[in-house]
């Protein structure tokens, strides 16, 4: 029962932060959960429409993005491992690479979206594309947020605030990035592959 008492504004202990981030991730799951539910409901209602529309998505770009994101999860893991061993510069390198991969992901997404707009598929076109743009858009925002959080950790590390005895920000941001990655792992088959 004798847990550490955080002073005003001081860094919360590792266990405390971990519980906080996991609880936060639970809320994120539910945020996407409502959209997944909507997807399930409408797909059951309009199977023909969903089949016809999903063929218009670019599977190759989708697959490329999947590979990009999985690779970014790897670089995050390497970063966390680095700081646990006290290698601050390696952490910065790995997290920098992750941010870069996130940017690549968003660029590919941009190319995809513009191509879809060119072919006349807009957010308001029909239910499938409404869901597609809502899901990928919301996910894109999360990628952007994740990149911001990782950048913050890179800055913290640059100021010498992280070490093998204080890894909390690196580990927590890594956890968040894995979540962002994981959501895409569900989105890719759901939108691109299953017809």
């Amino acid at each position: 029962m004798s847990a550490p008492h955080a002073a005003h504004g001081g860094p919360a202990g590792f266990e405390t932060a971990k519980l906080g981030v996991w609880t936060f991730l639970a809320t994120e799951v539910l945020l996407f959960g409502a959209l997944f539910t909507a997807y399930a409901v409408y797909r059951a209602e309009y199977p023909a429409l969903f089949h016809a529309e999903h063929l218009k998505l670019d599977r190759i770009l989708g697959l490329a993005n999947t590979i990009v994101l999985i690779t970014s999860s790897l670089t995050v893991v390497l970063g966390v491992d680095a700081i646990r061993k006290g290698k601050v510069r390696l952490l910065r390198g790995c997290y920098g690479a992750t941010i870069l991969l996130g940017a690549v992901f968003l660029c590919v997404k941009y190319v995809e979206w513009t191509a879809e707009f060119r072919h006349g598929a807009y957010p308001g076109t029909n239910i499938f594309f409404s869901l597609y743009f809502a899901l990928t858009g919301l996910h894109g925002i999360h990628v952007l947020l994740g990149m911001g959080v990782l950048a913050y950790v890179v800055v913290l590390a640059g100021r010498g605030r992280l070490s093998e005895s204080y890894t909390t920000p690196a580990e927590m941001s890594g956890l968040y990035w894995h979540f962002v990655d994981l959501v895409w792992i569900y989105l890719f088959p759901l939108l691109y592959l299953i017809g």
Partner: protein
Amino acid sequence: MENDRVTESGGDESGYLAERGWRSWAFTLDHKRIGVMYLLTTIVFFLLGGLFAMLLRLELLTPQTKYFSAHAYNVFFTLHGAMMIFLFIIPAIPSGLGNFFIPLHIGARDVAFPRLNLASYWVFVAGFLVVLASLVAPMDTGWTFYTPYSAKTGAAVATLSFGIFLIGMSSILTGLNFIVTVHKLRAPGMTWHRMPLFVWGMYATSIIQVVATPVVGVTFLLLAMERLLGMAFFDPAKGGDPVLFQHFFWFYSHPVVYVMILPAMGIVSEVIPVFSRKPIFGYKAIAYSSLAIAFIGFLVWGHHMFTSAMSPLANAIFSFLTFFVAVPTAVKVFNWIATLYRGSITFESPMLYALTFIFLFIIGGLTGPFLAALSTNVQLHDTYFVVAHFHYTMMGGTVMGFFAGLHYWFPKMTGRMPGEKLARAAWALIFVGFNVTFFTMFIVGVRGMPRRYAEYLPKFHQENVIATIGSFLLAAGVLLLFWNLWHSLRKGARASGNPWRALSLEWRTPSPPATENFHEIPEVTDWPYGYGKPKRTPA
């Protein structure tokens, strides 16, 4: 007997209130100051929402529209509902009193994430500002924003939904903070079964906030996108399903009813034993029934949609589960009454409000089954019976619990006692006014008067006049209550550390508490309800 705990009297003059200037408030990381800011903000919204209620009642004095247009009436009831729900009832007890007292109750110096706490306050304020901005084209949809109307009306639906999205985010962050605080920051010896019941209520509340709020957040986001980008989620013309909106909306909005009531139940569980001088009866049953209510609360949202074309099987299942919520709720009520039995009861203002809570909440609760049963629901759906039912539970329940807490903890928060004479006068006005207003609505509802109309048939005239008179009594009582507290803040008698001779931890610090809450983190050896019989921690 209960004086075996040290009562620190007075303490240093101003405690956590010592620092002056707006910066010391706006950038504070102290959970007590953040709690006070929440309290003041939400009370402003309560008065504003009440003002809109008065305008509604004024219009309903006559069967025909007289003072306002029908559109203005729609705007007023939307604002009344949206403000009361999103800006007062949901945040007032958890974010206000909860912020202030959870750390004190469990013997912590602060919440787990003080910066996040401050952020969630300012996100709340930002959300409120966005809500204000939506007033350029005021909402006329009712607080539920049902599609397809909300997707088509000329009002600023997207703006308002975004405002509520922000307020929801603030609610999630607060709930998250409390969950982690309760898990990780309890003082040595503060086991789960020694926690005050207010903390149990808040813990269950936080779980609901964290699990339900994201769903309504994304729902409002979809609604906003539907309006801004012409997306097709809920618009039947594009193949969307308005009933799906209702499912999403109530998946949040029904559990959130328990976000409103569970903290108030927690307050009542604190007040009743103190003013009966008896150990609380059935501590564990009360504690776990909060969790049970939170859990079952997630399974009953469909009872808001019995008339919205769900399948008969779904209707039957939701109806059955709805009856089921009554069980843990009744457990609590029976335990409070058993606590009162043969107690040395005194009727100070916190106790008056706590007893009023029980009385009104029982009426609200007993009218629930009429709405939970499918056949009577069809008759009563969208009538004033529903209005009366949820005002008895939300205003008669939550608001009375809030008032009980406000009077009970006023000495701790401010270092002054609330003026007792005026407090009782205000209570009498509120009690009479409330029942005259809302009991009348049960009657007029059963007779078939629909809600949300600016005009009504002449045969309902008499009841509406009575209800309006009652509502003005109620308003007078509420104004007197706040005037009294305001007055007591300046002129009230100095409060000792423990004026009610209670046993929970917050009373072991000076009034008002120092910035760091406790000079030394207390070692907890007993539960907080051992009146007359020390050492009664249940296993």
